[in-house]
């Protein structure tokens, strides 16, 4: 007979109670796994989005993110082409994207409004992947056979200016020399980003057209896209050494939405996790307290026969540990089923604040979380049981034997 088997048998004494505690533990672990899995999924999506948006590492003029510019491209990058070429030699680099940020007025001749412009390289759409929806027209092609400047504009902006694909608009802005400049563009496509504020302002042109409007050959920033996101940190450090005179920014430094959501979720789900753990702890504490009380006489008999206090205590700890372990396992299976279920049966989430598109709910099942959460639950169960049974196990033998 081994202690372990005895502990196992003891779980069968009060099956209902054991099952109830086990189930509560399982639900607790499921809850922890589901919330953390949802958080991980969200972080992952937002990280992916942020990396796609501007690149894993962003190269700028060193003052660009620190100081306000006096005029367009004041803190722009010179010699972007040679920089891009040098970077593309690196085997870790998948691609680079130069961007010119600009703004000004857009007009259809009768009506003007403010726009937020991006001069982009045509590869953008392949490199970024699906980050906006094309409602009409076409995106920029990689081979440049267009005649004249063309623009992709946001859905609401197109509605506002009452234009459709093929019609002309004029972009007005200040050049680097402080002169007013204007270029005519043809609407090539109408896009939706899912962010209403952006859809009413967004204008994308080829980078050369933007540079022509601003009368400069600088760019605002150069986004570097890596083959493997996991290398982002290492690559960032090596770039910092390689280009000490440039502004090198890691993706997460500009991923404000990602960072704030992460901070918020960590806090919310952290508190939820603590509440769940407290519930599990109390359930085990309660079960162990009742169990030790009911078995007082038996504890007395075991002690009389020469069982050490430590051995008796260990028995109770094992029982709680078993409950914690089994509950965790059941919880891990349940949360795994939940993750799988959500992959098969899509559940649509409402659009996040400030966006127009919902997204399918997913819950990651992370082996690391599984290990950590079950380890915590087991340790917690053992601790709770220890606190609950410590006194009962130390009762004087005679008193324990007389216990009614």
């Amino acid at each position, binding site marked *: *007979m081994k202690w372990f088997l005895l502990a196992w048998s003891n779980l069968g004494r009060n099956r209902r109670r054991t099952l109830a505690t086990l189930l509560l533990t399982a639900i607790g672990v499921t809850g922890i796994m589901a919330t953390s899995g949802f958080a991980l999924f969200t972080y992952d999506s937002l990280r992916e989005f942020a990396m796609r948006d501007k690149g894993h590492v962003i190269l700028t003029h060193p003052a660009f993110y620190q100081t306000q510019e006096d005029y367009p491209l004041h803190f722009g990058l010179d010699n972007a082409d040679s920089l891009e070429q040098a970077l593309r030699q690196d085997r870790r680099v998948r691609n680079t994207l130069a961007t010119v940020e600009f703004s000004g007025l857009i007009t259809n001749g009768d009506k003007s409004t403010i726009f937020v412009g991006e001069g982009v390289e045509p590869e953008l759409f392949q490199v970024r992947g699906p980050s906006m929806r094309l409602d009409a027209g076409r995106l920029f092609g990689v081979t440049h056979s267009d005649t004249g400047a063309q623009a992709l504009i946001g859905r609401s902006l197109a509605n506002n200016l009452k234009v459709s694909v093929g019609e002309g608009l004029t972009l007005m802005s200040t050049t680097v020399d402080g002169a007013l400049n204007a270029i005519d563009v043809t609407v090539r496509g109408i896009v939706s980003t899912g962010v209403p504020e952006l859809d009413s302002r967004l204008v994308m042109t080829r980078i050369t057209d933007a540079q022509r409007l601003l009368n400069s050959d600088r760019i605002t920033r150069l986004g570097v896209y890596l083959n493997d996101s996991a290398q982002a940190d290492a690559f960032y450090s090596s770039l910092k050494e390689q280009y000490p005179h440039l502004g090198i920014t890691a993706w997460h430094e500009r991923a404000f939405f990602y960072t704030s959501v992460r901070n918020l979720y960590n806090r919310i789900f952290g508190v939820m996790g603590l509440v769940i753990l407290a519930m599990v702890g109390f359930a085990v504490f309660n079960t162990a307290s009742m169990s030790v009380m009911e078995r007082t006489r*038996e504890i007395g*008999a075991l*002690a*009389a*026969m*020469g*069982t*050490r206090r430590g051995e008796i205590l260990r028995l109770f700890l094992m029982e709680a540990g078993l409950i914690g372990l089994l509950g965790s396992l059941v919880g891990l299976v349940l949360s795994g089923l939940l993750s799988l279920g959500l992959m098969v049966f899509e559940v649509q989430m409402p659009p996040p604040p400030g966006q127009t598109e919902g997204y399918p709910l997913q819950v990651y099942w992370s082996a690391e979380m599984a290990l950590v959460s079950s380890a915590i639950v087991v340790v917690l169960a053992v601790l709770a049981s220890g606190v609950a049974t410590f006194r009962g196990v130390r009762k004087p*033998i005679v008193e324990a034997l007389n216990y009614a």
Partner: protein
Amino acid sequence: MTLMTVDKVSKSYRVGETDQKVLSGVDLSLQAGEFVGLVGPSGCGKTTLLNICGLIDQPDSGHVYWHDRALTGLSGVALTDLRRRTVGFVFQEFNLIPVMSARDNIAYPLMLLGLSRQEQAERVTALANAVGIGALLDKRPAHLSGGQRQRVAIARALAKRPELIIADEPTASLDEETALTVVDLLRTLSREFNTTVLVATHDIRLSRWCDRLIRLHQGRLQSESRPPIPVREERV
């Protein structure tokens, strides 16, 4: 050979404001292999004395000697280990472990001693046959009668071949006929293993199995006497 000596042992319980003296200067010595009956009216302190002799309780004053070695001041762990090796208990309410089979109940003290599986099995089988429950070894206590349970308890107490068995009213929960058989068993087997047995009882009929009968009265051992009727060894 003297197994245990109890020397001027006193014990009182605090009840409310006053101390109620239960044992006042008890002297007793137990010889190896003897079967001693402890009798006396209810509440006279039999259980209290048994607990002290069984090393699960401590006297307020006086000393207990184990093979001429004073146990006074010994740590709880040391006493536990001494009991583990040398003292067996038979309780009135059996106190078997309900989630274990009869077999595992009997083997439990052997597990504490770290005996091999095979050795455990051999001893359990032999004892179970000796107490007549060889066919019931896989049953849990809940599925045994009172008499069968007490037989399991006797086998459990004897399994480690203890030097001393403490039995506090081992027959009080049994019917008359069963009680006699059970005591007879205890008597026969303890003799076989040369185990000292100290048994407290109300039942004067059990006294005929005792080598020696001691009577507790008003906190003292009033008399030591030979049993009124000689042991009937032929009875089974």
